[in-house]
């Protein structure tokens, strides 16, 4: 189980306290060390720091939307940036395409079950710390 391994840093950018709590619990049990930001400005500032094995991003955020964060990260031209997993309340297929086009590796639609979140993170997150 991941419990025995060293914890990996993961960034969560989500403003809904319930969703954040659920995601933090899942990530903790999957062996990650979670840093949580509630708004887009602080979220982007954190996202630009090196070392994340993945970023979990909500789209409807106060101050700066998740779309703008995706755009800003892509504009940084850091091809080696961490994988970004979008968790959104919008189910439309177009949104999904758009998010993937802006550099997200996966687009999950809320409501989403814990096992899908856990599996997606396991699938995409980097297994080691990259500085």
């Amino acid at each position, binding site marked *: 189980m991941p419990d025995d391994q060293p914890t990996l840093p993961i960034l969560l950018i989500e403003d809904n306290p319930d969703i954040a709590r659920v995601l933090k*619990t899942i990530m903790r049990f999957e062996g990650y060390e979670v840093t949580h930001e509630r708004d887009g400005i602080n979220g982007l500032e954190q996202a630009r720091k090196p070392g994340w094995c993945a970023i979990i991003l909500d789209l409807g955020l106060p101050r700066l939307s998740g779309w703008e964060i995706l755009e800003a990260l892509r504009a940084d031209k850091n091809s080696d940036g961490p994988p970004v997993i979008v968790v959104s309340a919008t189910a439309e297929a177009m949104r999904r395409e758009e998010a993937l086009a802006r550099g997200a590796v996966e687009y999950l639609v809320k409501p989403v079950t*814990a096992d899908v979140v856990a599996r997606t993170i396991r699938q995409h997150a980097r297994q080691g710390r990259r500085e």
Partner: protein
Amino acid sequence: MMRDATPEQCRQLLEFIDQPIFALNLEGEYVILNAAAAAVRGRTRQDQLGSPYSRFVRNPEVADAMVARARAGEVVTEKIEVALPNGQAQVIVDRLGPWRDDDGQVVAIWGSAMDASVYETLGEVQQESQVLRELDEARKNLLSIVSHELRTPLASIQGYASTYLLYEDRLEPEERRDFVRRIVDSTLQLEELVDNLLTASRIEHGTLEMSLRPAQLSKIVFEAIAEAHQRWDSEQIEFTGPERCELVLDPRRIRQVIHNLLDNAKKYGGDGPIEVVLEDQEQKVWVTVRDHGPGFAEGYADRLFERFYRGRSEFTAKGTGLGLWITRAIVEAHGGRIVAASPGDGGALFTFSLPRGLQAPEA
């Protein structure tokens, strides 16, 4: 074909049009008037032909300025006060514009007139149709807004429940209890949303029924505050008012009103303090809910209560846009009133009154 029309046919066409039409030369003198235009000034055609546009007018400076602007190629619409032969004045709206020759040179001035009240009615009709278009747009959006609003508590229920199932044996007992409590809170949130939608539908169909009986308003307020504190996981609401305040009302509906106002205060005021004040006066009881968010712009106080209106905040526009509309309908169904204000020192304030004179129906 019009381009082959004789001058006589053109004259007949002008006469046929029941809208006042006239033409001025570049000096601003009448050269053409149809019958309707002559009637507007209350003079004969002969009296007016050759006379200046500003002659039978009480605000000649406006008329002269219009002529100058039309001569320069502009289309102008202004209110003109016509001096009628009986000494009275009539306000009409005149429109002047350039009459150009084939080379584009302004050679004369076209004019048309409209009764000011008709002009204003037309403006109102245009405004009304704009409002109807917006309402229609909002109706179309309602479905997607409602599904988004349903999705939020659903996501929370599914998240807590599936996390509980997946990691049941690793969650602390306190955590497990808390997860279940959050699931219950989210189902309450769903219930309130459905309740608001049903109430909206009843208001729309005129079938909103009140079940009036004597009740403790202060108790309803306390309970709504306690419930909000539990839901938000914060103690940010401060209450001022008497411990007892009995009057005749529909307890379930008034709970919905207070819930909607608190919810609104949280949505737009964030984590700042929220004040609830209950004032028991002889004829009426007043309840005020105040937040310390950014408030709203002057002139928006009435718009807030419109159906589907959703304010913007740094917490982004959320909700169905029905809450305050429902709130007002319920307050008014009790014979009360609700007003909104954005005081100078910030925040938004909602005050509603409930009259003391209501009678509970005989059991």
